[in-house]
């Protein structure tokens, strides 16, 4: 059997693929963060809680309304996105004129409160959520055993990232968004309702987090802390990719998923650290991030 650095080649290919799958979650979450930061200049620390809410709403839809995974994929982002709209209108919108730090503190606080409410209501140990019947089972790829659901996650996440990128880069709405980022007053002078656009953008960013939460529900424990660990890594991804860069966050998300996956083979103890080491190196050499504009 062929070996690469003492690891059988098939195992290494398998791990590459797994890294890509994890990268899909990083990409989807960092995409939402990048969209929000790009337009609102808000570092959305509530993102992890909103990811968790997506998973919980999927569970609630099933347990309380009998609506399965496919409905959750549609409804959970809408419901959680709507809560995002309310949060933006009631609270975040008051902070745009202040320093970034205030937005960060506010969203961090909101995140802690959401997590606390869910913990009081549902406890800490989590809730079960099944993989939908259509996506049960696994393919034998020869070099590894590939669960159908994980394949679905990668394909779906890639499609979401591509769609978001197309909307922002290739449509008129996207052009307005980009213009408002550059000069909101001027865009408003042309008759575009910028505050409403900002609100909806925040809602869309939050909906992306919730969508990632629904994708995660069948494979991770649905519990109130599920976003906390992930979100720190995702922030590193956004910083490495360049704050506010859509394409940067997607490519970095997938790329770092792979780097992390490889670390899990060669030095598993360091697998959570490696991303921060890369972040430090990138910040030292390219402070604006790999794809950011200084």
């Amino acid at each position, binding site marked *: 059997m062929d070996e690469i650095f003492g690891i*059988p080649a098939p*195992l290494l290919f*398998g*791990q590459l693929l*797994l*890294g890509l*799958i*994890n990268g899909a979650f990083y990409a989807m979450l960092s995409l939402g963060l990048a969209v929000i930061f790009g337009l609102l200049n808000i570092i959305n620390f509530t993102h992890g809680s909103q990811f968790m809410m997506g998973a919980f709403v999927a569970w609630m839809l099933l347990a309380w309304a009998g609506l399965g995974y496919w409905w959750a994929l549609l409804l959970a982002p809408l419901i959680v996105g709507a809560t995002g709209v309310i949060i933006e209108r009631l609270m975040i919108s008051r902070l745009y004129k202040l320093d970034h730090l205030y937005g960060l503190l506010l969203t961090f606080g909101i995140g802690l409160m959401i997590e*606390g409410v869910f*913990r009081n209501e549902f*406890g*800490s*140990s*989590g*809730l*079960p959520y*099944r*993989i939908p019947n259509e996506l049960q089972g*696994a393919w034998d790829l020869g070099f*590894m*055993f590939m*669960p159908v*659901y*994980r394949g679905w996650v990668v394909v779906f996440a890639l499609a979401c990232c591509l769609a978001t990128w197309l909307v922002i880069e290739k449509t008129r709405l996207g052009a307005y968004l980009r213009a408002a980022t550059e000069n909101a007053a001027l865009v408003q002078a042309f008759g575009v309702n910028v505050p409403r656009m900002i609100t909806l953008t925040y809602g869309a960013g939050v909906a992306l987090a919730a969508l990632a939460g629904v994708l995660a529900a069948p*494979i*991770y*424990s649905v*519990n109130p*802390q*599920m976003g906390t*660990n*992930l979100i*720190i*890594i995702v922030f590193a991804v956004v910083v490495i990719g360049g704050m506010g860069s859509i394409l940067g966050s997607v490519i970095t998300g997938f790329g770092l998923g792979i780097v992390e*996956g490889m670390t*899990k*083979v060669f030095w*598993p*103890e*360091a*697998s*959570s*650290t490696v991303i921060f080491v890369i972040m430090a190196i990138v910040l030292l050499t390219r402070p604006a991030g790999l794809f950011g504009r200084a």
Partner: protein
Amino acid sequence: MEMNRRSLLAGAAAVAAPLSRARAQATTIRLGVLTDMSGPYRDTTGPGSVVLTQAAASEFGNRGFNVEVLSADHQNKPDVGANIARQWYDQGVDVILDVPTSSVALAVNQIAREKNKVFLNSGAATSDLTGSQCSPNTVHWTYDTYMLAKGTGGAIVRTGGDSWFFITADYAFGHALERDTANFVRAAGGRVLGQVRYPFPATTDFSAFVVQAQASRAKVLGMANASTDTVNTIKAAREFGLHRSMKFAALLMGVMDIHALGLESAQGLMLTESFYWDLNDRTRALTQRVRAANQNRPPAMVPAGCYGAALHYLKAAADMGAAAAKADGRAAVARMKAMPTDDDAFGPGRIREDGRKLHPVFLFEVKSPSESRGPFDYYKVAATTPGDDAFRPLAEGGCSLVRS
């Protein structure tokens, strides 16, 4: 006047027991439940431990002294836990109970000894509490790493699981559990084919590790971790089809974790606990009494340990006089060790001189969805080990209280 009476009673407690009861009418024993109210162990300890301690206090009733139950959140941080423990002991709390998370428990263990108070641990796993760190002020009631390793690890080796791969949380608890289990595996002639240590608590996805376990071709997947991590490991392992070729050994897992995982994924798992609500008439009666207060759930193992420990302490305090028990934590623990234990959760048992509480330990097999008759009907008993065999032999712990 008060002080005189106390010292008098401390000296002549046994003789003057009826007298002390009459005089100590106004004495209040304070039990502080120091636990995880906001973190990952909340469901297995937390509010449940408070409810069960209160149940012990109200069942005990007023036998010449009042009992008050307090609670606090240590956030799984040793510094926070140590601060609360100092404050509590200084402000008249006599007993600290529960204290999950081994690092916090070891800190409280030191403070109880220093201030000559009582520490009744139920929630922490480390067997060091009755080994190198043992203390005359501490009782370790419910379970420990040695008993888990022997219970689950030993049983799986006996059924032919002689080659293991470990997925281990990379901190003291995970290392201890992996080491203890590996020792049993090797002692029984088995082999450890590999292990992977993942960063705790920053790991969400375990697929990379379960694939490595699969590639090792070991017969058993040993999970030296706890709570959400164990649930995520099992979910990933099933997704990648490991259940077709490997046995799963979840070395620390409880009824709440099974609830989180769902029976479909959890069925067939073997796990070790010293309490299950549906064991016998006494455990069912206890469950009946506390269920309403306990968020309509049956008690988990660690809260049941708080119940048993609190009840036994109160019996000892009544026996020696509440004032004497308050004045000298060491004497109170010595009295607890001298008296046989008996409660609805654990049945009859005793406390060894190193502070280890001995009671039967059960190996459970998780039921399949079709076998389960309702929520929390999750276990069937696969084996019962008497307390003397289930826990680490007295001589092997290295406890300084044990005279050789």
